[in-house]
């Protein structure tokens, strides 16, 4: 079991020793059971911290803000930022290291083991509770969740309400950390590609009609991109809502900016945007599932990223985020990469 007290203790130590600039963990939203990222700046604030099955957020994403802040400030405080990370989150740190976006000592990592569980899926929880409103959602004893409803305690087997990504997780233990809380417990690996198998089996037109429906309701609010630990580009090639323009940018450079996707939210543009995102995440996505979770119209974005994850593994033997020293998927090749599709 991950001990919250121990977590608080570690964070307090890191803050009071001045080792970290600030610490990002999770706190409850109001008095409810849901949580949000919490920025802890003072040792006395560590009591805000929680560790529950609702800690979905991949906090690694906030390193982008820190990097941008450093670039803006004249004499930035370059102490590391402290983070709580799960196994998947830790792999996204490895990808950022691999891509030299951050250095190892930019981040102080408190890794937490997901042990036999992980994070929950709210829809599954609501379905399970059949209309009842939970007051608290906690980790139970081995492999269960404890949900408090109407002051009663209900024990739920983890697989019943676990997020899909957790069911398909290749490593429930942080692969990089300064401190690790909880035990490394090998979990029975399920089918890592379970969620996409049904779609792979569909007939082509059936698949198209599925995806057409999904993409046509995209609002292009860019929450998927904004929450993604890998989407750190200052200017997105697909459709930028931020332009990396400075006083030094020449008129030519501005004129040469390519607009691949128009701003209109029609199907063609939505598809283009999501295709670019999927292909740019190939070999980089750690399946933290955040894009899918935040989508207000619930486009199943994981299905895209998971497909790319599977192809990278099956075609090129490539696994994401376990080794920060490996070359990026598309920046390397093997002489015998498959080419049966080439005429």
């Amino acid at each position, binding site marked *: 079991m991950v001990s919250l007290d121990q977590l608080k203790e570690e964070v307090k130590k890191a803050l009071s020793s001045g080792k970290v600039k600030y610490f990002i963990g999770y706190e409850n939203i109001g008095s409810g059971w849901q949580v949000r990222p919490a920025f802890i700046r003072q040792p006395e604030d560590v009591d805000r911290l929680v560790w529950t099955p609702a800690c979905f957020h991949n906090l690694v994403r906030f390193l982008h803000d820190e990097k941008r802040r450093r670039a803006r400030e004249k004499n930035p405080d370059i102490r590391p930022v402290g983070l709580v990370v799960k196994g998947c989150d830790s792999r996204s740190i490895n990808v950022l290291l691999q891509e030299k976006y951050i250095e190892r000592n930019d981040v102080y990592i408190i890794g937490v083991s997901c042990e036999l569980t992980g994070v929950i899926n709210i829809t599954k929880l609501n379905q399970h509770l059949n209309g009842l409103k939970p007051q608290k959602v906690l980790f139970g004893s081995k492999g269960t969740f404890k949900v408090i409803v109407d002051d009663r305690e209900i024990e739920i087997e983890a697989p019943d309400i676990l997020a899909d990504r957790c069911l398909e997780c290749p490593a429930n233990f942080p692969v990089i950390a300064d401190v690790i809380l909880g035990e490394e417990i090998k979990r029975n690996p399920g089918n890592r590609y379970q969620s996409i198998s049904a779609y792979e089996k569909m007939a082509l037109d059936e698949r198209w009609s599925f995806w057409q429906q999904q993409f046509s309701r995209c609002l292009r609010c860019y929450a998927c991109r904004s929450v993604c630990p890998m989407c750190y580009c200052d200017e997105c090639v697909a459709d930028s809502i931020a332009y990396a323009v400075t006083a030094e940018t020449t008129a030519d450079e501005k004129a040469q900016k390519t607009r691949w996707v128009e701003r209109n939210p*029609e199907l063609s543009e939505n*598809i283009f945007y999501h295709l*670019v995102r999927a292909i740019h995440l190939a070999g980089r996505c750690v399946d933290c599932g955040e894009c899918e979770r935040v989508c207000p119209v619930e486009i199943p974005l994981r299905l895209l990223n998971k497909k790319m994850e599977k192809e990278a593994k099956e075609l090129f033997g490539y696994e994401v985020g376990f080794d920060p020293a490996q070359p990026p998927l598309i920046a390397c090749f093997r002489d015998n990469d498959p080419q049966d599709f080439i005429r």
Partner: protein
Amino acid sequence: MAAEFEPRIVAFLCKWCSSAGADLAGVSRMEYPPNVIPIQVMCSGSVSPLYVFSALSHGADGVLVSGCHPGDCHYIKGNYYARRRLALVKKLLEYIGLEPQRFQMSWVSATEGVKFSQLIYDLVKELKPLGPQTKFRRNY
């Protein structure tokens, strides 16, 4: 009677092998259907997935990327990167529901004029029955 559907194919040809192979097809007067619009690039390795998506979005019925055979790349290894990158693109497009015939890759060397001309024949033949590509095409 309505005219037969004529697919429009955008072909990204590497300068040193495939475009030279297409030139050889020309020099040898090997006829092939006029449905392909060649865009010469320096190397198949320079073909970004964005180019493929863009061609589809602008209404191409088919996209071809053609480079040097493995080991023959003028730039030593550009085609190996292309092969890996575009394999993923192909998988992705098909997963979304695009007909596999609509995005193709080939190795055509500077001596393979015959192969190039045959390839275009085949592509056109495969694309005709599919009709226009409307899935990714812009509507306005």
